Each structure stands twice: as structure tokens, then as C-alpha cells.
């Protein structure tokens, strides 16, 4: 592992990222943190899309589950409002919901799967929206600063919290997520998923229970996305029902494609770029959806392998190999 140049590069990048708070303004740091949380989401989402071959337009549901776990604990169980409880809780609830929804969805393929995943996420959206006594409805829920291992940040202003302790916490979780996901995709389990993606008939013929393994992939991806959602909620300070809306799920798909779903690092790159792209568009025109939509179309037509994918092809052409 140490001999592999890829890990050396990762190590260097990680060290560089440790210094980010000193290099960026607080505003840009918050943006970067949004990007990091979406990078975790993208990694999880791509396990399902890039490695297992299933496209879900409903992963916003798990993002919302993670985010609302935080919001609900804040509102109803403030004694338990600490990161060491919130993160496992978000993972737990994402697991449960992904298990139920995944079970329903993996019995179908392709279009039916996509529609079903989408519809289920809208169910969560409707529940979050309509049960406003519990969930805050369209107003959503507030996300105050949590305690961390006994340390309280009461009274501190959010930007300060985010630029200090929280950044390092987030970075650490991000790094762990990368390592874990890397391990998963290169393991025999990951190879089995890729076999399912490439040829499900043959996969079944070599003894892989396709449905079951799709479900495993679904659950793991849901958990990563839920984790991202929970971490995102602290940056945003506020959670609303539209996190489960299918258009938001579409943004998750968008950023994964933007980076390239054929490469491990693709979703990470895509998440960071999309965060800035969306903000840039929103800041410059009221028709930002048009801009984003047009960009997506151009992207799909010209760079189907995404930004990272295009770079990888470039490198490959130049002689240096970059394998998945």
C-alpha cells in the first residue's frame, strides 16, 4: 500500500488539506466544507452507480434521513446532541431506510428501479413536508452547534466553529470514508459488484446472488449519503424537506457524472466543482437552473466520462496509466 504512488498522492493531498483553514476566507471555507460533505455523498452514491450499475434518482432520501436525524435530535433529545452520538445515529437510520427502500427497489432493474427509487424519496419528502408539527414542514428544523466529546461550543458563532474544530473533524471523516470506500471497491465484494454491473446474467451464473449484492451496495451507499447529509447539516445550520426532493437527488447524480462515475476520485472532484458551479450560477443570474441544466446537457454530450474521466483519458494517452 505504501509503495503505491496513488497513496503517496493521497497522503500529500491530505496534508495540504490540513492547512486549508489558513488559506481560505471563512466564506470560502464553508463552501469547501459543503463540497467535502457532498464528496462523501458522491463516494457512496458512486458505489451504487459506477460500481454496481444502478442509477437512483432518489438518494436524497438518505441525505435527508441523515440531516433530519441531526435536526430531530436537536429538537427532541438535546441531551444526546453530541457528535459521537449523532454520527452513528445518522448511519443507523440511513441503514434502516436504505434497507427497506433498497429491498423494494432491487427486485427491479433499469427504468423501473429508477422510478421506484425516485418515488420512494418523494414519499419521505411528503412526510417531512406534511407532518409539520414534528418535522417543521416547509420551515424545516434548526441545527445548532453540537457538543464534541464533551466539549460544548455554546455561544460560539457558527463560522468560527466551522473554521476550527469542525473542519478537522469533517476532514478526518472524509479521509476515513475515502479509505473505507477504496477498500470496499477493490475487495472481492467490490469485484462481485462490478461483475454484476458488467453482466448480471453471467454474474448469476458464477454463483453471485445478484439481488442480494445489489441490496448490500444499496445499503452501503445509503449510509455514506446519510453520513454526508448529517455532516452537511452542521455547515448549513438548517435542514428542510426538499433535501429529499427528487430534484435534489438529481443534483447528486449530476455531480457524480460531472466528476466521472468511471473513476474512484470522480465523485469527489465532481462534488467540489458542482458546489462552486451552482453557487456561481445562483450568484450571477436568476435563471441558474437554466445554466445548470444547459451545462449538464453539454457535459453529457461532450464529456461523458466526466471531468476526472477526461483527465484520466488524457493521462492514459500521454502514456501514464491510471487504473480504476
Amino acid at each position: 500500500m505504501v509503495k503505491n504512488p496513488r497513496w503517496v498522492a493521497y497522503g500529500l493531498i491530505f496534508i495540504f488539506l490540513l492547512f486549508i483553514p489558513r488559506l481560505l476566507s471563512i466564506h470560502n471555507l464553508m463552501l469547501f466544507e459543503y463540497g467535502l460533505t457532498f464528496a462523501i455523498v458522491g463516494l457512496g452514491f458512486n458505489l451504487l452507480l459506477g460500481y454496481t450499475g444502478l442509477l437512483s434518482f432518489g438518494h436524497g432520501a438518505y441525505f435527508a434521513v441523515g440531516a433530519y436525524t441531526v435536526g430531530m435530535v436537536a429538537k427532541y433529545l438535546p441531551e444526546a446532541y453530541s457528535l459521537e452520538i449523532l454520527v452513528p445515529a445518522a448511519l443507523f437510520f440511513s441503514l434502516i431506510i436504505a434497507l427497506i427502500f433498497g429491498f423494494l427497489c432491487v427486485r427491479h432493474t433499469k427504468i423501473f428501479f429508477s422510478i421506484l427509487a425516485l418515488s420512494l424519496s418523494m414519499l419521505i419528502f411528503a412526510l417531512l413536508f406534511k407532518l409539520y408539527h414534528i418535522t417543521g414542514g416547509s420551515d424545516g428544523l434548526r441545527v445548532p452547534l453540537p457538543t464534541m466529546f464533551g466539549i460544548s461550543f455554546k455561544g460560539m458563532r457558527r463560522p468560527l466553529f466551522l473554521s476550527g474544530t469542525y473542519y478537522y473533524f469533517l476532514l478526518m471523516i472524509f479521509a476515513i470514508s475515502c479509505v473505507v470506500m477504496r477498500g470496499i471497491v477493490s475487495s472481492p465484494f467490490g469485484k462481485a459488484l462490478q461483475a454484476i454491473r458488467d453482466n448480471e446474467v453471467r454474474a448469476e451464473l458464477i454463483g453471485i446472488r445478484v439481488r442480494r449484492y445489489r441490496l448490500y451496495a444499496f445499503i452501503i451507499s445509503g449510509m455514506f449519503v446519510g453520513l454526508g447529509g448529517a455532516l452537511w447539516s452542521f455547515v448549513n445550520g438548517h435542514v428542510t424537506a426538499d433535501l429529499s426532493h427528487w430534484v435534489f437527488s438529481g443534483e447528486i447524480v449530476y455531480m457524480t457524472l460531472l466528476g466521472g462515475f468511471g473513476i474512484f476520485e470522480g465523485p469527489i472532484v465532481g462534488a467540489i466543482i458542482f458546489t462552486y458551479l451552482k453557487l456561481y450560477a445562483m450568484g450571477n443570474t436568476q435563471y441558474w437552473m437554466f445554466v445548470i441544466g444547459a451545462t449538464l446537457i453539454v457535459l453529457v454530450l461532450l464529456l461523458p466520462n466526466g471531468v476526472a474521466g477526461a483527465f484520466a483519458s488524457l493521462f492514459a494517452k500521454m502514456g501514464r496509466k491510471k487504473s480504476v
Partner: protein
Amino acid sequence: MLIVKNLTKHFGGFNAVDDVNLEIKEGEIISIIGTNGAGKTTLVNMISGYLKPDKGTILFFDKDITHASPYIRIKLGIGRSFQLIQLFENSTALDNVRTALFSKYGMIRRGLMPADRYTSVTEEAVKILKNFNMLDKKDLTPKALSEGDMKILDVAIAFALKSKLLLLDEPTSGVATQDKFKVMDSIVSAIRKEGISTLIIEHDMDIVLGYSDRVVVMHEGKVMAEGKPAEIMENREVKATLFGIVG
């Protein structure tokens, strides 16, 4: 080790396979030949579990598998390759074989250590590729392989499942004539090494003559003749039906 008794399958009013009896001993390589629509593929589909017979039984090592699911038959040791190549398109040749091995050994639940670290399984996959003369191509994906190599890989995957009986459906179809023997040499040498029984559906008589222990001739759903390759070639009825040679 494989005994097929009175196997029958009809589609509508037409008998695709009509009261067929067949026996394959351990280590034998048998070719099934016949005109198009003679029932060869239907027979193989029933042996591998993709079609349920209307009548008859299939015994595999004395076990009745007539109604067993394909999944169970794979676990019991029946493997097959296809006329239309079925490979894992975006994985390397090594991974194509190795993933089959991981599945066979029940290791696909292992989710944390990289596949490359499983040295014994990886070495075994490499050995299989070597036996099939594909060692130099182990890091290539199917896109970069020739038609013949893809066929070999297809068989190699079925082979990796440690099948005791291999069903090969036209293993050289789609392969350029000059490469056919190379492909069969690779496949058959690997098979002979492990003593695996094999059932081959073939149209190419040179292949049939060169590699089979026994030949079974099918016509209109029935077994018309059976015997050593040389005998079959002398059989008048066979010559008339298959080659239109009279006299």
C-alpha cells in the same frame, strides 16, 4: 456421471427434443452434432437448467436434478459457456476469472482487503489463464481481445467454477477459421489436464473429429447415431442427413 433418460421437450405441436437418452462418463469429451433445429441447444438448456423438460429425468452423479434451478446445478458442478459471449466487459481478463473463483470459494462477502492481497486465489486465476494460453493478456479487458480470445476467456470462467461437467455451446463460432484450432487446443488441453467431462455442440466437423472421444448425432429431436468419431463419419444415415451424401 451424467445420465439423461427419455428427455422430451415440446414447444406447441413440435418436439424440440424427443425421448433422448444420453450418458457421459467422467473425463469424456462428447460432441453433439446435427442440423439446425435438431434440438442440440434445447438439450443443453435442459441439462443446465434453463428449460424444464416435459418428460424424462436427468441424473448428475446419481442425483436427480431434472427440476433443480440453474443456481443449484452450478453449485453441483455443471458449468456452461455460451454461443454469444458473456463476459464482464469492463473487468480485466484476470478479474473475469478471479471473481468467479472468489464466488466459488464463498469469498465475495469479504469487503475490506483489496482483491490483490488474496494471493492464493490470484495465483490460481493466473494459473488458469496460463493453462488457456492467455497469460500475456491477463490485464486486458474484453474490448482489447480478439474474438477467439474472448471465447477462450468465456470458457475459462466456466472452468474456474471447478465444474465437473462443462457444456460448451459452439465454442468456435464467430472465431476466424485459422484461429479455431488454436482456440480448441487451449480449451481442450486445460480440460484434459483436470479430467473434466465436456459436452460440446459443434458444427465444424474438423473440430469434432479432432477433439472428441465420442460423437452423438441428433436429428429432429432424436438421437440418430452415437459412437467414435471415425465410426460416425462412416455411418451412411449420418452422411445422408447431415452432408447430403448419398451412396
